[in-house]
Each structure stands twice: as C-alpha cells, then as structure tokens.
C-alpha cells in the first residue's frame, strides 16, 4: 500500500491536482509535515500503522520535515517528479522508517565480531558491466575495517559463535 496526498490547492486559478506519493515504509508510523512537489504547499499528516489518522491539513508558512518520494499529475498527461528532485521530492536512500531524518543502521562487524559488509558506500566493482570479482579483499578494499578487525582479534573480541 502507498498512501498519497492529493494536492488541490488553487494555484493560478486552477487546482494543483498533484498526487504526492508517500513511501509506505517511511510513513507507516509517522507524524510531521510534508510538501507538495508541485506547488510547495505544506501539509501536516499523522499516520498510525499505515492509516491516515490525521490530515492532510494545510500548514501555510511552515517548513516541511520531508518531501514525497515521487509525484505525478494525472490530469496533465501524468507528468511527474522522479525521486531526488531538489526542493520537490526526496532521494530514495533506503533510510529506515524509524529514523526517517537520520541514517540507516550500518554495521561493520557481525555479532561475533567478524567483518560483514553492512555499511555504505562500498568501493565500486572495477569490473565490466557491473561484474564483480569473487572475493572481498577486505585488507585492500576496506583498510580501516581491516585495522579495526586486527585490534579486535588482539583484544580477543572475535568469537566462534
């Protein structure tokens, strides 16, 4: 499911009629303000378990907390704003819903203290057409994690289970 804010604000004598799509993961339990990608009108919403509990209510003059992921105008031949248009839509960055305005949980070590590639960005493959070599040479590709790993080994923090 994907909830929407259908902006009907009068702009230049006719309704804005833009559909602003809300990425469900981020808005599943969320309260805050969000802008219309077309006319910039700020709306307050409160969603609980994916249900639009309050709003959308116009909040003129206030700053939005975030932007929709995508928006389109069905009466205008479905012209649209793709994710990541500055000032209109936000980029899709896998930001966790619980920390919408923060960063994703990233890990460098598994629960037993060995390196795992759970952080970004990672170095590119250097292969052709996205192809990858069949080995993560951690010492070469992620030297800082390698060093941290050596310290963990020396401190006896690396376990079998």
């Amino acid at each position: 499911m994907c909830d929407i804010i259908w902006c009907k604000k009068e702009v230049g004598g006719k309704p804005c009629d833009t559909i602003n799509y809300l990425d469900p993961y981020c808005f599943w339990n969320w309260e805050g303000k969000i802008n219309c990608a077309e006319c910039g009108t700020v709306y307050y919403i409160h969603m609980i378990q994916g249900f639009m509990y309050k709003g959308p209510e116009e909040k003129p003059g206030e700053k939005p907390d975030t932007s929709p992921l995508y928006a389109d105008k069905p009466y205008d031949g479905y012209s649209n704003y793709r994710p990541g248009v500055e000032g209109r839509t936000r980029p899709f960055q896998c930001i966790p819903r619980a920390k919408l305005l923060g960063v994703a949980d990233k890990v460098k070590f598994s629960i037993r203290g060995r390196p795992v590639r759970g952080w970004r960005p990672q170095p590119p493959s250097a292969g052709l057409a996205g192809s990858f070599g069949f080995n993560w040479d951690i010492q070469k590709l992620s030297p800082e994690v390698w060093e941290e790993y050596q310290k963990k080994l020396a401190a006896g923090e690396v376990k079998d289970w």
Partner: protein
Amino acid sequence: MAQDPRVTRMEDLPGPKSKGEMDEFKMPYEEYCKKLFDVGNEHTKPKPLNGIRWLSCTMYIFTPHAVANLAELGAEVIKLEIPRMGEPMRHTSPFNEVYLYPFHDARPMTGTGLGYTNANPNKYFVTMDYHIPEMREVFYSLVKKSDGLTELYRPGTLDKWKMSYRYLSEINPRFIYVWGGGFGYGPKVFGGSYDILGQAHAGLASITGMHEYMGGHCSKCTNWIIDWQSGTLISCAIMSAIHHRRKTGLGTMIEFSQVQVPTRMLGHTTTMYGKFGIVRQRWGNWDTQLAVHGIILCGKSDFPDADNPQDKHDARYVMVSAFQDQDFKELCDITGLKELYDKYKVYKDRVEGEAQLEIYTALEKWAADKSRSQVAKILTDAGILAEPVRNDREVYESQHYRERGTVRWMDDPIFGDMVVHGGYSTGLMEKSPRRINWHWRPLGADNKKIYRDLLGVPLTKIEEWYKKAYI
C-alpha cells in the same frame, strides 16, 4: 564379482570386508552417522545436480526459492534481473533497515535487503532486459545452452515476447519450462498472488489462529510459508521432469499455481467437508485430533530482566503433548489435577471441545506461578513431552542446531561474516549434500562470466549493452 557365479566369495557377501570396516560397523550409531554425514565438509563431496543449468526470470520468494533448491543441490542457476533495479526482493528488508552493500556499481548508496535471504544462494546474477527485441536472440542463445527456465509473469506475458514454452521448445526440445504464479488457468487467470493471498484463498488462514470467541482471529503464518512451500514443490516437479526427460529425451512444461498449494496443507479439511458437510473451524494452539497436544501460557518469563521484549515478555510459552491415556494420567498426577483425569480418562472424551477448554484452562492456571523452563522441566522429568517455544536467539544458541550444522557461520566471499541456515535445514545427505557457496552476489555480478565466458560475446558488445541499459 566372482568368475564362476556358483562360487560364493566372502568379499561378495554383505557385511564388513576388512577389520577396519568391521570396526566401523561396530561404531555407536550416533558416531557412525556423524562420520557419514560429516557436517561442515559438504564442499568436499559431489554436487547431485552438477551439470544442470537453469535460467530464472523470477522475483520475490516463491519462484526464486524453487530455483534456489536446485542451486543448493549443485545446479548452475543463472538469475536474470532487470538492469540497474534488480528484482523487488532486493529492496525488501525487515523494517527497511537491514542491508548488505554494495548493490550495484550504479547505485553505491543502495544495498540488498535481508529479505533476499535463502531464496537466492549460489546463483549467478546477470542483468538483462529480456523483454526488448534487441535481447531476444541473446535470451534464445542462453535457452539453447540450458536445461530449463522458471518464470513468474502473468500467463501469456512471455508468449507475447515469443519466449514461452511453445517457442522455446522449438529451439531446445529438451527444455523444461516452469511457470509459477498466482492462479494459473481458470476463472482468475490474470490474478496475481502473494503468499497471504494464497493462505486466504485456499482457506488455510481460516483454520489458523484461535477461534473468535476465545479472543482470536484467523491468522496468516507470519513467515511466508506458502511461498517457501510452493517453491519446494516446484523443485519436486522439476526433478520429476528431469527424470522424465532422461527416459524420453523431451522437455516439458510445468504450470504451477501458488494458491493451490495451501489446499494440500489443509489435511483432512476438504475431505471432511465432502463426506459430512462439516466446515472446519480454527482451534489455535490446540489440536482437533489430539488432547493434550498444544501450547500453553506460563505466568513468568524465563528472561524477566532482558531488554528485548521478545525475551522479556514472550518467553512464556510451552508446548505440551500428553494425549495418550497413560501420559495424560501422569500429567494430571504431576500437576495435581487428578479430578481432570477422573473426568476425562478416555482419549475420545478429552478431545471434545468443551473438555479441551477445561483441561487447557486448568493447565494454564497451574502454570500461572511458574516460568516457562520450570514448566518444561517438571513435565519432562515426569516423562511427558514438553518444549519451550523458542525465539531466534535461542535457536541460534541451541547446541542441537549447532552440532548438526543447521545453523552455522560462513565467510561469504563477497559480503563477509554471516550466519546461515536455509540450505542446511533440509536434511542431511551422505554422498551428495546440499551446500551454500555464497549468500547472494551484487546485481549483475556475473555479467562477464555469462555473456563472455558462456556465450562468447565480445567485451566491447557487453559494454555497449551496458551503456544502453540492455544489461
């Protein structure tokens, strides 16, 4: 064999042939099994499906899992994904927070979510926009070199693209073609499906969960069991098709509707309706055929001071089984509920709905001042089958699973340290076991391997396709 068939030689008879073998035969059975299956050394043994090459135009869990079974058994599986995007399951992760990076060179800030787990090990990951006419011949050349394909598009979609069984079997008559999807032909031929839809459509959800008058609702099984189960059943069909082909030399088409799978898992439900007109009801954590044989709630958690609510509040359930008359007597003795035994001495009386209500209520009352492990210990010591309902952490820490290799750590060649279970939870095989070589690989990781090494496409062409987003 002996030269003369009338001569019996000791070495032709069954049984040990040498002192060493005799010693082996004398091993305690458990040791013998351990040696036979040699858990942890799966990679030193042959792969049962070595030599089979399979194509996969699949997404989510159901159809990818059908092919993952082949890949774990040693088939060379080539998964074709949409360039730059990959299949949707790569972007699916529990609460959108658990990712492994990198995803693809073109998207350095994106990862593959752990939702991809278990349905994609050991596969080769290739990108191809196979629906455009420019790539059709490339797709055909893969078909010529492969044993089969699994796809999941709406019925007729691949036919529209000239990639359905009737086209592919002309190119490769030994080709096995699998369609796995929602409804298949019939009144809802274009209906798509998800696991939950299957559970609802086939009535499985209606008999899962507690009855409404006991505070329950119909429930779906949280983890998508119809997806996993349907995938496994497709794998069975593929094995049969391979065997059929060995005999006839001809490929075949398999059409597999996901929503029909839960009907198989309904047990007696439909047959009972056919015979007596009885519509089966939900009976939750208890059992309609056996009593006592269910899960009860204890009063105290095993981990009252834990931070994790799953430990703190939920470690309170125990499974109890004492449906035979003697076991039930013992259960009543140990719990001090002798009047229950006097009332329900016979199995047929106990299994009645009202009796079960009374028995389970009394048991939960008895367990109200005890913790889960106390209850399990009291009952187990009395010779009654009882087992705590474990959570993930307890499964991870379980010595049983560790010793059998069901849960184990592996050093994934690309992503590093990972705990895995899927491939090793499917039984042990002595001579040709399953194995996990890698969890998954980034999108398009094997483009060069497949396009150049397998199909002989020059690197300049591959680069050109990449720039045009054909691959």
